[in-house]
């Protein structure tokens, strides 16, 4: 049962690396890191009003981190700060209490359910979302 931390969906998401890379002419960017493990994520956004028109990310981190960044990339257009916050809350509820993501949350969130058994890895998944939140509020 602990076998599925790296289930195909997560590995696939990481390898797909949606939105990976630098963004030309970004309107805002933010870097967050986890000194405990050295992971570091930079997210760049372009926006129009309160919504993103594009997202790019550079991840120095583990596969879980890359998968989360890739999920972010999938939803990189038309994103609002509130939406990111909602998804961070849904992720936290999933990781900490195993709560199923509410309707409207990103469908890929559920792939991270197996991480809930590994407290030391929570931050790996949260990092890209935190960077996005920071960039959106910049």
């Amino acid at each position, binding site marked *: 049962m602990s076998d599925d931390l790296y289930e195909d969906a997560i590995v696939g998401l990481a390898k797909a690396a949606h939105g990976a890379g630098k963004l030309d002419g970004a309107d805002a960017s933010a870097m967050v890191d986890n000194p405990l493990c050295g992971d570091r994520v930079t997210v760049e956004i372009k926006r129009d009003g309160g919504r993103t028109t594009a997202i790019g990310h550079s991840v120095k981190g583990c596969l879980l981190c890359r998968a989360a960044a890739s999920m972010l990339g999938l939803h990189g257009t038309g994103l609002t700060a509130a939406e990111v916050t909602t998804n961070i809350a849904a992720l936290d509820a999933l990781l900490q209490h195993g709560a199923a993501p509410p309707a409207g949350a990103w469908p890929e969130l559920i792939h991270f359910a197996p991480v809930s058994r590994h407290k*030391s890895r929570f931050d790996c998944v949260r990092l890209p979302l935190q960077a996005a939140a920071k960039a959106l509020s910049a």
Partner: protein
Amino acid sequence: MALDVQRLRTEFPILSTQPGGRTLHYLDNAATAQMPRAVIDAVTRHETGDRANVARGVHALAERATAAFEGARAAVADYLNASSPEEVAFTSGTTAAINLAAHGLGAHLKPGDEVVLSELEHHSNIVPWQMLRERTGIEIKVLPVTEDGRIDFTFFDRIVTKRCRLIALTHVSNVTGAVTDVAPVVEAARAVGALVLLDGAQAVPHGPVDVRALGVDLYAFSGHKMYGPNGIGALWGKRDVLAMMPPMLGGGGMIRHVTFARTAYADPPKRFEAGTPPIAQAVGLGAAAQWVQALDREAVAAHELRLTGKMLSGLATVPGLRVIGPTGLQGRRGVVSFAVEGVHPHDLCQWLNDRFGVALRGGHHCAEPLMQRFGLDGTSRASLAPYNTDADIDALVEGVADARRNLA
């Protein structure tokens, strides 16, 4: 409900041993309290089932050890009614905790700034401030002690001036048993913008302490005096107070990033926990906190109060004996120091050990200034824990009388 002392005693294997060849009457609890099975087992269980280094490790044992260590932090925070586990920095004990505070606050003190202590303090709440005085030129001001061994607040207003940055006092005296009245201290400190640190080494064994209700800024204590392991203690601090303190020790675990050119430190409490922390000992301390919390606190207090009364009235019958500290039961704990005319404390303690199986402590109790205040080289001290009995007090009183008859 009265405390079931006999049942309680069965939890402490050492109480039924005969270390000196006689039934043990352990009245040296203020030096180190004994450890119940629950705590011993918690440590052993950790070492045999969850042992690993904490943080950064992703394997199962490392995750378990980290959960156990952070769980212990939460248990200690709960014991202190702290706002958050992050306000609890583990140290090796009270002494290390006070040194950490002196180092951390010291970074913000200038020559002429004043730290107020009392004549009642343990060396561990004196020497760190003297060392800071040498480094930074602060002034140390000392609250005197009354005839009955309490901090004397008569001259308080004169001693706590606008230059005062910190008042650092013992919460309960390890010599006289006097409980410090904290509220006026906090009030006076606030009035001049000073912080308050309490040395809680002798307070925490008597049940949970509410640091928020006390209103202090920093609180230091040791595990081994509250039925926990050696080598562990904690400095609790308000978040913003800890945040302004630089680390005392450098090393693994307390950094954000290291290069040879520059190193950035982690946030509290990690900032103060350089190197592999005392993991199993923290687990033991957490278990000890939970063990104390599970006791019937009122019953314990009533039991200790009754034994303290019995001890004070029993000792009062010994000619030439003088109690150093409050002779009544108000505002004191079951720590009783005394001097017997013509009998050296070490002889008295030895006599009580050899002939009565009573374990006392004799000497200056790391409180030389207090001894000087009372014109003594030392005292004999009996100190209580919930597992003490009437028989312990009987043996004490009989032994002291006997020692006096034979040695004075």
